[in-house]
């Protein structure tokens, strides 16, 4: 019998992390008026997903699942398609970065995966905005501010995720997972 790419256990783990992203997006309110600040927890969860299920496509699946859920919950300012694509692209971006960089427990790698994944979301919002004929930013430096916000919070989220993975390894979580698989 052909072995499935993701085991049921892995799919459950990824689905739980996808739900966690949506719950965190709804429940966690950082008192920051800075673009991209949600990347702090978002990229941390994505990095954890990449660490606990070390297969290409894992973070894309988390991104897609959380995107579908968020779209159905009518989240986001710019409609369901924008929400679905931006959530998905975070996962796809992280996956592509991991194909190049590999080990998400390396903190430099985690930071870069956080930045690239988060920039995926920014690119979706920017591209759809430009395609829909959205007006130029009112504040001339609006895009610079947004780009910097996405990079900084993506990096911090990636770092947080990398540190979480290291803590999970020290706690023996990965040995526990190996048994469950």
């Amino acid at each position: 019998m052909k072995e499935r790419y993701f085991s049921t256990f892995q799919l459950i783990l990824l689905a739980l992390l996808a739900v966690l992203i949506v719950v965190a997006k709804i429940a966690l309110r950082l008192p920051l008026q800075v673009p991209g600040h949600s990347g702090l927890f978002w990229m941390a969860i994505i990095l954890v997903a990449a660490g606990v299920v070390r297969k290409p496509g894992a973070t894309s699946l988390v991104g897609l699942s959380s995107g579908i859920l968020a779209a159905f919950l009518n989240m986001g300012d710019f409609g369901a398609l924008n929400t679905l694509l931006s959530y998905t692209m975070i996962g796809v971006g992280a996956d592509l970065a991991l194909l190049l960089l590999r080990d998400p427990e390396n903190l430099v790698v985690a930071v870069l995966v956080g930045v690239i994944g988060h920039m995926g979301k920014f690119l979706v919002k920017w591209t759809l905005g430009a395609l829909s004929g959205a007006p130029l930013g009112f504040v001339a430096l609006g895009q610079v501010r947004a780009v910097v916000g996405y990079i900084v919070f993506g990096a911090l989220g990636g770092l947080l995720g990398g540190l979480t993975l290291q803590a999970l390894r020290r706690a023996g979580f990965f040995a526990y997972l190996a048994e469950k698989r």
Partner: protein
Amino acid sequence: MTQTTRILIAIGIVIVIVTVVLGVELLRRQTGSSPAAVGEPTLVPGSIPIYLDGKLVGGFQPADLERLEKASFIEPAEGKKQEGWLLRDVLLLYVDAEKLNPGSLITVSSSSRGKTAQVTWAEADEPGNWVMFDLTNRGTLKLISALEKLSTRDQWIQDADKIEVVSP
């Protein structure tokens, strides 16, 4: 390929993305300005044109922000702090208060999103209604308010690009 090389490639990818985005935005800003009609003010790219009874009287632009006080309120639907500039203060920069009466109808619209919202001057002038512009993540303005008709995300006017005032 060594890990250092991989990391440098990843950093290069981020730099390329940022450069392309900011380059395209700069290009849009440089080519986005249109010549003003005779007797009408020139609009700065990204500014929000304000029309009074069909005539362009000015464009709300970033330089105006220094002349305005910031306002903020916690919107009840999501419990999120919204911070920006009151519509009444924006209008009064370009329109004499004498030309506005409580029944004056203010229409804020977004051409890209095909959305419009209308409030009367009486509603905009009431501080407790918090009819104001907030800055979106991509640097455009969205109209929000504590008024029931403008209190949810679906009702807000994201990417606002025009303000029209018609006095009866």
